[in-house]
């Protein structure tokens, strides 16, 4: 027993002498909550870092909430360099273990994200499931947005994406979703957030990427149809203009799409059946809706409108030459052998891939009122 005790002591000796490397006092850490990247002149990037100030962040009932964060930014070639630049500038060490959001400016996205993404997935502190967002203007403005409920602009952005069930046009895309698409033939999409005047934020639509470069945008309606087609649509409010400029708004509560690839003697095609359940929110003049006949023509109207929108998003994605619906993977999974050749040059193949869409919908309630109160 004396031997093991002395061995333990001797083994500890090297440590006591050389101290501990990776122990960082929490007060020496600059806790980074979000990072914004904007394209600056000739290939440089302007990196803005949102750092939380813990002392103001503590919950103070009724206290004056002076800013619980501050943004530091610097421009330079790579992102890693800027991070070190921050460390020299600030008195503390950059710690991005708690990063909640990455915001990328539109020009930077158009310029290509390889270099930016490379820093984030190689960096071992950051996580794979951090949401990424494209700022319509400059990312630094988005990170400075006016605060209403939250204490940090970043948490307001993160909140916008995950909880706005009412108008689910846009889905939270995390870094690994984005990278997964960048690896496969289908193209990735990232939500775009636009800053309207005096601090109002709005999800303007979805940016479409080919590998790492942003090639175009889909507006809100197209983004919704894309979500429906890829079966990731959680529900939301949609409107149809009626011929005599009336409006028929309905809330889609359930949407499911089954996309089945077919292959007759080498000819690849895709058949998408979409099933929607909706509830009428407000309608200008259709009249009572409880009768079967009225219900059927409302459903027919919704089918027609949705069919037209789905077709529109497919043509749009063909224009951008970006397979946003993961058709490539779906076909490859079902027919690996046959689709071997066409997957190689998927850009052309996708342009003339026959896609048949059929929409069936079911209205299951017209709200609390039997017919219009007129």
């Amino acid at each position, binding site marked *: 027993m004396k031997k093991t005790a002395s061995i333990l002591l001797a083994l500890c000796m*090297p440590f006591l002498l050389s101290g501990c490397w990776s122990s960082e006092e929490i007060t020496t850490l600059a806790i980074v909550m979000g990072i914004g990247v904007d394209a600056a002149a000739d290939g440089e990037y302007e990196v803005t870092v949102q750092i939380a100030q813990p002392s103001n962040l503590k919950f103070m009932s009724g206290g004056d909430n002076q800013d619980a964060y501050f943004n530091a930014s610097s421009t330079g070639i790579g992102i890693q360099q800027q991070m070190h630049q921050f460390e020299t500038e600030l008195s503390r060490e950059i710690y991005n273990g708690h990063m909640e959001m990455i915001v990328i400016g539109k020009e930077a996205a158009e310029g290509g994200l390889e270099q930016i993404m490379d820093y984030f997935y190689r960096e071992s502190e950051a996580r794979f499931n951090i949401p990424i967002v494209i700022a319509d203007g400059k990312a630094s403005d988005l990170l400075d947005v006016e605060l209403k409920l939250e204490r940090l602009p970043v948490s307001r952005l993160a909140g916008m994406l995950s909880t706005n069930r009412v108008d689910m046009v846009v889905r939270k895309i995390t870094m690994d979703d984005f*990278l997964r698409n960048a690896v496969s033939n289908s193209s990735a999409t990232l939500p775009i957030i636009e800053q309207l005047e005096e601090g109002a934020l709005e999800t303007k639509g979805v940016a479409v990427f080919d590998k790492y470069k942003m090639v175009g945008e889909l507006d809100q309606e197209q983004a919704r149809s894309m979500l429906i087609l890829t079966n990731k649509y959680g529900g939301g409010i949609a409107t149809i203009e009626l011929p005599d400029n009336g409006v028929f708004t309905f809330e889609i509560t359930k949407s499911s799409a089954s996309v089945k690839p077919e292959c007759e003697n080498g000819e690849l095609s895709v058949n998408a059946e979409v099933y929607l359940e909706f509830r009428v929110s407000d309608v200008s003049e259709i009249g009572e809706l409880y009768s079967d006949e009225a219900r059927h023509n409302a459903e027919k109207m919704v089918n027609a409108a949705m069919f037209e929108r789905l077709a529109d998003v497919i043509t749009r994605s063909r224009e951008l030459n970006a397979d946003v619906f993961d058709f490539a*993977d779906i076909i490859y999974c079902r027919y690996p052998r046959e689709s071997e050749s066409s997957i190689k040059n998927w850009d052309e193949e996708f342009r003339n891939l026959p896609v048949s869409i059929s929409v069936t919908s079911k209205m299951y309630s017209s709200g609390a009122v039997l017919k219009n109160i007129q």
Partner: protein
Amino acid sequence: MSEKKLTKWQFISIGVFFMMGTILHTSFVSAIAGRDAWLIPIMGFVMFLPTLIFCWRIGNMFPNTGLYEINELVFGNIGGRIVTFLYFLFFLNVATLNHVEMSAFSATYLLRGTPIVVCGIMIVMAAVYAIKKGIITVGRASGALVILMLVLNAISFIQAIPQMDIDFTAPAMVQSPGVYARSSHISSTIMYGEGLALMVFAGRTGKKVNMGKSMLIIMLIAMVYMIQIHLREVLLLGPLVQFTRLPSLEAARMTGKSDTVSRTESIYSLIMLLCSLFRVLISFFVSLSALRKVFRLKTYQALVVPMAAFIAAYSLYALESPEDSYFYAVNTTPFIWALFTFVLPMFTLVIAVIKRKAKLPDRGGAV
């Protein structure tokens, strides 16, 4: 009053704990096989069957004798010691490579700033303390520890199920046969092959422990465990699994929904640490007892600390750079390991059977 032999369950728990140490090797298989990585352990098991048959037959021929005593029985005094020295080199390299992976893992993920050599020395210190306490104590301790590890593993798997996406494994078995052959060769030699070290414990097990049966149980549990790890990685990371260096840790980082319990990968990395420490510990002990058998030393107690220092030092230079043990493991190590886990055991089995046949006809008695 307390028995000095390993009981059946203690031997199996040491074996399973040793096989759980492959959690750091998952990138060897998933880098090659990608989305079919979870099928590879089955093929690896099939490729490992000959060595299992060797364990079974040799176990029955020489009940309750360790691998080194078998060598000496089969190859005679000098030949046996040469074969044991070969095994010593093999197990030394197994311990070193595992040690390299473990220190690289803890230097980059757990203790971000610490230099690799310090992590290496800390790992080796823990191994020295365990060996000083004696392998019977380690056997006794591993009984409950294995169950704890398996339960924690199951919990982290179940916790990750909501995030999993089934169709990441979609086009199964479509890759070229070369890919499958290569990854199952890697799996059978590196992941299962290193299990040969457990044969050395045959000498220390109690009377009613049948080597073959327990090795089979250990390898089956190991197979299920490996399938579960790979399945978790593929279902969480999808096609990215081919690119990440430590997929099981990245998969752990992915899980976690609510903000409070979101980042549990530090706890998971501690589990990975314990399992791989056990692997280093057992292979270290096995190479030590090989050295003792070769030079006929009375006790190996005196060798424990210098050998540990050697492994900590040698692991700095074993591979070009400690960070990229992946490159070697995928290309050349399977061939070297195959030599030791397949060729040598088969050779011993053949000689043993021939000797057994030569003896039986003339004297008709057992060996």
